[in-house]
């Protein structure tokens, strides 16, 4: 079966230096695929490159059977890819509702938008009380909820999370993982970038470990859990 997302031999970086030295990775339909790796391994760079925010230096990216290498970002996300970016990037001067509207920017169906709004509010009831609040004035945890809810407003087939639990309190982290699993339960495929190894492996189907711009090991989560390469990636062993 063709994977939903296929990344082949991707090279990309900043200025003179390459950060990704030929990364290949597949995301299968309806699964949670995780990408693990220490700080600075190149995880965010990979996400940015496949979404067209960073130029790709060589390699190819496919969504289903369509090659999207070099496409502008807005054309890529139109295919049904949503990204919850690193660092809780809400639109600070917009209200919660306007942020959610932005998430549904490409969604042309008014009725679908209001259904999705209801769905987002059932997952995060707290957001419903805050619809009129400026996103920039919310706490970090609330902003994290908002970026996830915003990601659900389109009609994604694939959601990419870039370290959604970074800097959150343990309670929020746990809640985040639960929500990601629930989203996946709706049939949406997930590419989950995380540093939180234990909890990530607990909900993922397959995983890849990135170190210094290379995938050093891949496999299903049981094998990864025992993998020495994974330990090495984090503890520099």
């Amino acid at each position, binding site marked *: 079966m063709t994977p939903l997302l296929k990344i082949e031999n991707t090279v990309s970086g900043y200025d003179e230096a390459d950060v990704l030295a030929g990364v290949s990775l597949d995301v299968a339909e309806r699964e949670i695929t995780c990408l693990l790796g220490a700080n600075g391994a190149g995880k965010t760079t990979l996400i940015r490159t496949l979404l067209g*925010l960073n130029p790709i230096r060589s390699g190819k990216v496919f969504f289903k059977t369509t090659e999207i290498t070099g496409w502008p970002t807005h054309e890529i996300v139109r295919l049904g890819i949503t990204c919850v970016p690193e660092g809780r990037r809400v639109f*600070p001067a917009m209200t919660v509702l306007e942020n959610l509207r932005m998430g549904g920017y490409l969604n042309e169906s008014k009725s679908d938008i209001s259904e999705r709004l209801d769905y987002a509010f059932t997952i995060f009831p707290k957001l419903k009380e805050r619809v009129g609040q400026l996103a920039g004035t919310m706490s970090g945890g609330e902003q994290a909820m908002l970026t996830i809810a915003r990601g659900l407003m389109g009609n994604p087939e694939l959601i990419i999370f870039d370290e959604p639990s970074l800097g959150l309190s343990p309670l929020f982290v746990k809640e985040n993982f639960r929500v990601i699993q629930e989203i996946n339960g709706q049939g949406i495929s997930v590419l989950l970038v995380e540093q939180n190894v234990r909890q990530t492996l607990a909900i993922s189907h397959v995983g890849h470990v990135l170190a210094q711009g290379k995938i050093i090991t891949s496999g299903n989560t049981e094998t990864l859990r025992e993998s020495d390469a994974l330990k090495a990636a984090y503890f520099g062993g």
Partner: protein
Amino acid sequence: MDLGFLAQFFVNGLVLGVIYALVAVGFTLFFGVLDVIKFSHGDVLMLGAFTALATYLGLSDIGVAPGVALILVFVAGIAGMAFVGAIVCKFLVLPLRGAPQLNTLLITLMFGTVIRESVRLFYPSGSNPKPFPKLLPDNAFEFGNLTLRLDSCIIVLLGILAIIFTQLFIQKTKFGLAIRAVAQDEETARLMGVNFKTVVLLTFALGSALAAVGGISTGLYYQEINFAMGLMLGLIGFSSAVLGGLGSLYGAIAGGFLFAALQTVGAVWFAVPAYKDVFAFAVVIMLMAWRPTGLLAERNEERV
């Protein structure tokens, strides 16, 4: 000094304030979406006024009624400058992204000079001031010794409508939402599916169309335009935008009216009208030394 006399100054100040606000809103929009200063803005305003004048002359040759001409003159100026604004953005501003911002400032400064000198050289006897047609009814109402001219009122009203329209467009429409998204976080806006280039081009078109409204209003008010009018209006509009906090829509509007108020105070105070600009700029310089980021310092929450 009697009250009617002061009221006259007040009305004059309102007209100027609206015109400055129209120019300042453009500066703030461009800065909002791209963090750039487009220095050809004043000359685009002048070009808008000349486009309107040329359109009027063409229309009067074929005998179009003044009322219809008034509307067509605005349409031509607005559409023409919206187009020019988008072109400047596409060919001079967007290609310079990634280069130091100073380069954008310089290239648009040079382009403004090209516009200005071209009008001077290629518009028939373009170096002389041109009479601008009296297209608005100039009925005057007398209230004691205050004379209120209808054309001044219409100019103020039109300008305010243009500003309200812009404000509603940005706050209430989906495209306006996209403009604000780009202004707040360009990359995340693109991740939401916003076509960044289209939004930026449209924002430049919108800001330049407002400059055209300002230019035509200036012509209608003074019944005269000249090739260099954009220099002062551009500088004042820019100062107004900075005074209000560059990037903030309300700040730009407030800045425009504040500058006009300063000029008015200067004119009344010194009784020699020529001193009004020196006074206004001197106060603005002091205000900027006091509040370097503008009176309504740009907070994230306020940005367009």
